[in-house]
């Protein structure tokens, strides 16, 4: 059995670790709250754009745009992978990256067939180590990112699609379900073929985004020009939406990871305290034995 002093040191160090994990849990909870609010306040923006784009695409005949149509031949696929900058958030990154790797390995036989746009340090290091083709990367995003923070990377990715460098683009991120549950999600970003069905991906927006009748809009200057301007915006806003969703998931994952770490520390302290008491008791018993033995020998 370990010595009394050793156990004591272990108890105190576990207690300190527990303090840290507890603090991190609370910080994450606060950040999660903020991130959720952000995601909520962003929702109307995408909903509105989608509504207008859908009504233009549906209501006007003879309007088409390269971003709305499937390309006959897929030469290169782009993946936007949203990870976190820091670890200590459970399976948040590993689950996502595993799924991405699985899909890439299943779909593509050579690195020429895909390209990766990665957000977050963990993902970047992961792909770099495996020598996978990273086209763009962004790290060190703030906890509550603003639209301008990712505007350039989003715009460049959309441009890559327009320039036919990518023939389709997927988004990989953790969708926030609740504080204890995040689901690895793959969403097709481009081409925007499923405008009508898009709504079901964001359950909470169901009622608000219902198009109110089919209004006959006047388009200034004309529908084609507006689509041309609107679609890149829409795609960019989808990327931003996924990022906000991913951030909320990150804090949720970190919060539950830290909670279980705190619980573990509690259990460990209990066990250690028990063995500390046992060791102390054993030491006392031994001491008494020695005294009694000594006394018996003298008489």
């Amino acid at each position, binding site marked *: 059995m370990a010595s009394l002093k050793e156990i004591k040191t272990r108890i105190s160090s576990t207690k300190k670790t527990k303090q840290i994990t507890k603090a991190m849990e609370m910080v994450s909870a606060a950040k999660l709250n903020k991130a959720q609010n952000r995601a909520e*306040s*962003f929702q*109307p*923006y995408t909903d*509105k754009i989608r509504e207008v784009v859908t009504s233009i695409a549906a209501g006007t005949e003879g309007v088409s745009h390269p971003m709305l149509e499937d390309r006959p031949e897929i030469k290169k696929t782009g993946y936007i992978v949203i990870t976190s900058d820091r670890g200590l958030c459970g399976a948040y990154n590993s689950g996502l990256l595993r799924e991405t790797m699985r899909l890439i390995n299943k779909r593509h036989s050579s690195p020429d067939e895909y390209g990766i746009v990665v957000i977050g340090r963990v993902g970047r290091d992961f792909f770099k180590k495996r020598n996978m083709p990273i086209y763009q990367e962004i790290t060190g995003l703030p906890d509550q990112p603003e639209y301008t923070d990712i505007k350039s990377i989003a715009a460049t990715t959309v441009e890559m699609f327009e320039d036919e460098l990518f023939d389709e683009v997927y988004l990989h991120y953790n969708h926030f379900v609740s504080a204890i549950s995040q689901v690895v999600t793959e969403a097709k970003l481009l081409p925007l073929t499923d405008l009508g069905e898009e709504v079901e991906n964001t359950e909470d927006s169901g009622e608000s985004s219902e198009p109110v009748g089919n209004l006959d*809009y*006047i388009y*200034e*200057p004309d529908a084609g020009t*507006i689509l041309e301007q609107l679609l890149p915006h829409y795609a960019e806003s989808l990327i931003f939406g996924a990022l906000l969703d991913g951030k909320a998931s990150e804090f949720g994952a970190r919060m539950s990871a830290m909670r279980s770490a705190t619980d573990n520390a509690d259990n460990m302290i209990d066990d250690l305290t028990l063995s500390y008491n046992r060791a102390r008791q054993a030491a006392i018993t031994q001491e008494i034995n020695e005294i009694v033995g000594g006394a018996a020998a003298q008489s």
Partner: protein
Amino acid sequence: MKTMQTNVVTPDGSVFSGETEMVSVKTQEGELGILPRHLPLVTPLTIGAIRIKKDSKVQLIAVSGGFMEVRPDEVNILAESAELPSNIDITRARAAKERAERRLAEARKENVDFKRAELALKRAINRLEVSENRM
């Protein structure tokens, strides 16, 4: 007087929401004033100021791009960024203006940078103008 619901929304949240009497914006084709019961309309906006008339008072908002959707009783303005005069960081806008001007002077040859700097300059000037009109 008849009013219409007006919303100014950006990716970072709602900037303005309320009943208004008139909205005046700058589109790519020129200035455009919207009164209640306007025909449904969709149009892109340029960098410029929106003027919203409410209770006979005019509220200015600086927007950078985006577009506007008009319905008979509702106006929705979606912009990449939109700021009320009180929220404009004047020192930052001044710095951005100077930076853009410097870049414009330097980058006369390269077209890409030129365009970017020009847009940045426009945004900065727009912000400054809107914030000064407050007084």
